[in-house]
């Protein structure tokens, strides 16, 4: 069937993004580190990844990434599912740079973005999202940014779940093999319907929030009990990585 590759891709994508931010139930040793400390540590690693084009430094950071994957004991399946498409996606965007700059530049750029995103994915895989939001509030990040992140998180599932439901509903009522032109037209209708349905469902969810007392008040989150030793070990590790990065 002609439509299958496109719709199969859309279906997989919607299922993939539906659970993109959902924390896995991982009993990782890194959870012993306070989320506020962990956030700073992981952000330093992201900064180290994106502020260099030196292959040596990037491979050093890659080695640190591997160490963290092992130490955090995250399930490799969900990790690779989330990171898997990233290199292809970034390299596609960087493709013009192959001709403007060089192939090396495009590859190194892709590599460093993948490293940065990987660190963030490890962090979100092992940390409940509400703790991340509370940490951002703790560091006095402007409320509008935290709220935007919070809504993005809440509505990501909603948006992709709606897309998935539309695709399934279409599939269940299709009987013949249509021309590409027809498929293209229907694709446009699907997109329009998708936006209308998401808008409507978003409105209903907003009413549900109001009916349950929504007042823009942040969750009072209790962080994991602050144990000094894991935090010191983690930050010492980050300090060593930073020094190693500077020496290379």
């Amino acid at each position, binding site marked *: 069937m002609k439509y299958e590759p496109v719709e199969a891709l859309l279906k997989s994508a919607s299922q993939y993004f539906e659970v993109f931010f959902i924390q896995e139930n991982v009993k990782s040793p890194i959870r012993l580190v306070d989320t506020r400390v962990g956030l700073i540590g992981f952000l330093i690693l992201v900064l180290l990844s994106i502020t260099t084009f030196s292959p040596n430094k990037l491979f050093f950071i890659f080695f640190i990434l591997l160490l963290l994957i092992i130490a955090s004991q995250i399930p490799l399946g969900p990790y690779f599912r989330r990171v898997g498409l990233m290199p292809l996606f970034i390299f596609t965007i960087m493709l013009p740079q192959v001709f403007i700059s060089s192939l090396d530049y495009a590859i190194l750029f892709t590599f460093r973005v993948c490293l940065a995103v990987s660190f963030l994915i490890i962090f979100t895989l092992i940390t409940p999202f509400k703790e991340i939001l509370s940490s951002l509030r703790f560091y006095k990040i402007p409320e509008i940014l935290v709220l935007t992140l919070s809504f993005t998180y*809440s509505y990501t599932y909603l948006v992709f779940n709606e897309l998935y439901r539309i695709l399934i509903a279409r599939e269940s009522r299709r009987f013949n093999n249509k021309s590409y032109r027809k498929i293209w037209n229907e694709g446009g209708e699907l997109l329009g319907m998708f936006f209308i349905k998401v808008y409507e469902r978003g409105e209903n969810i907003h009413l549900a929030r109001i009916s349950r*007392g929504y007042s823009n008040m942040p969750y009072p989150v209790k962080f994991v009990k602050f144990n000094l030793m894991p935090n010191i070990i983690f930050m010492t590790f980050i300090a060593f990585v930073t020094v190693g990065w500077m020496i290379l």
Partner: protein
Amino acid sequence: MKIIEAKNIEYAYPDKTMGIKNFTLNIEEYERVVLLGSNGCGKSTLLKIFAGLIKPTSGNIKIFEKDITKDNYLYFRENIGFLFQNPDDFLFNPTVEDELLYTPMQLGISNKEAKALISKNANYFGIKKLYEKPPFRLSGGEKKRVALACVLQLNPKLLILDEPTSNIDGKTRKRILEFLDQYRGTMIVSTHEIDFVRKISNKVVLLSPKKELLKVGGIELLEDTKYLEVAEII
């Protein structure tokens, strides 16, 4: 005390489609009211107005003898429990436990107190084992039970349920019926299941397919086939 005092209310959607027309109704404290009508007759719209979630485009409505204003917002939220028809619209938190904690947290109840509060309902509806699960991974019946447990967190004086027994299995239906039987506040339920109405209500409000009030009466109204036919219930 009058819980709902609606006088000539109308509601039009932004595209000018009428949701409800010229509707007048009073509901007294402890009444168990069922809105009965065919699909699309305006039941859900009316319930959202009764919950103070949307304002009628014309007419007057008082809830707990208060107008729908910003000053009364918190009072309504603390005293009205509203269950949406589609639990997917109602559940939006990452885990079931977060769902249950949402309302108490929004109302500033401490974490410790909130956890104690949710525990009772969670046990009653048998959802404690689902605490860590994301709501969208639950079955239809489980979602409904979680949503109902969320609504009942603060033991609301007015309970509004939009088709609580749609798309659920017999066991969940029985549990919901048991609960509604024990509930001692004012209740407004929309449904099109006559059997369900007989078990839970003492006042029946029939809506016509024209989105107008057709007839208000006691449970005996269910025996009047003439009205039920006009309302397209049978």
